């Protein structure tokens, strides 16, 4: 059956083991839910299993996996009509500018994940791809099919929003 579908089981298992952390982490940070992220990641690999013969190289596979994961994760959010982000515009107002900038503390990590979930979807995706996957803005733009300027704007606004939220909601961790 595997041969019919264009991929041997051993090869497929190798690809899962190689990329599961990447796929699952993107899905988790975009959807914000562990169970949903697992479903998304599983769907991504099943689609890989069916269409792997179209992938030309390891880089292409990685690019394809990231793109399909982002698409499936955002589809999943839309299907469930969940909008985890808070009203972003409110946080962009000047009244939330902290006195100094925010110094991150190790204790903040869990709270930062919570704050990430509150970012509007395009900003959250850009921040996850930039800071988790360490992709450059032009790579993110190619992956999402968006202009580089749009990606840079999402990144800049996303980070600004995170810093402001961190400064206001995590005072106890701010040094």
């Amino acid at each position, binding site marked *: 059956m595997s041969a019919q579908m264009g991929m041997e089981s051993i090869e497929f298992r190798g690809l899962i083991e190689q990329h599961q952390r990447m796929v699952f982490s993107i899905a988790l940070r975009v959807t914000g839910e562990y169970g949903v992220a697992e479903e998304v990641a599983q769907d991504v690999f099943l689609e890989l299993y069916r269409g792997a013969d179209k992938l030309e190289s390891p880089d292409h596979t990685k690019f394809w996996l990231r793109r399909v994961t982002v698409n499936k994760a955002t589809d999943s959010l839309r299907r469930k009509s969940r909008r985890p982000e808070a009203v972003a515009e409110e946080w962009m107002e000047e009244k939330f500018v902290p006195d100094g*900038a*925010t*110094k991150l503390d190790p204790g903040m990590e869990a709270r930062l994940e919570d704050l990430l979930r509150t970012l509007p979807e395009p900003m959250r995706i850009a921040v996850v791809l930039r*800071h988790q996957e360490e992709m450059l803005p032009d790579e993110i733009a190619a992956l999402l099919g968006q202009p580089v300027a749009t990606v840079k704007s999402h990144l800049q606004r996303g980070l600004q929003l995170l810093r402001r939220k961190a400064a206001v909601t995590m005072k106890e961790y701010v040094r």
Partner: protein
Amino acid sequence: MSEMNQDEFDQELARMLPRVDAPQGFAAKVMAAAEAPKKAKVIAFPHIRTWATGAIAAGVIVGALAVGDVHIRHEQQRAEAQRQFDAATQITDRAMEHARQQLAKAGISLEE
């Protein structure tokens, strides 16, 4: 509160957003799903199965209604054609009879 510029914040963020491990047994679960028969996959998505069943049922009903409608229309057309044929036959018979009477009056017999 210490000062931190955007670049430092970027770096801190990258450090705080590492990849996380997939759930225990994830690879095995995906392998099992990939190699499971097609039927199992349908069961895994009951909302799709419900939708597909509904679509098929609706298709069958629409098809049956369409076939019934076509059959009724054919029957109506056949009955109308028969009625027109009968009317035309009656008119022709009357015309023939009239012609025969006129010829008889003129002393011409068609039987001869």
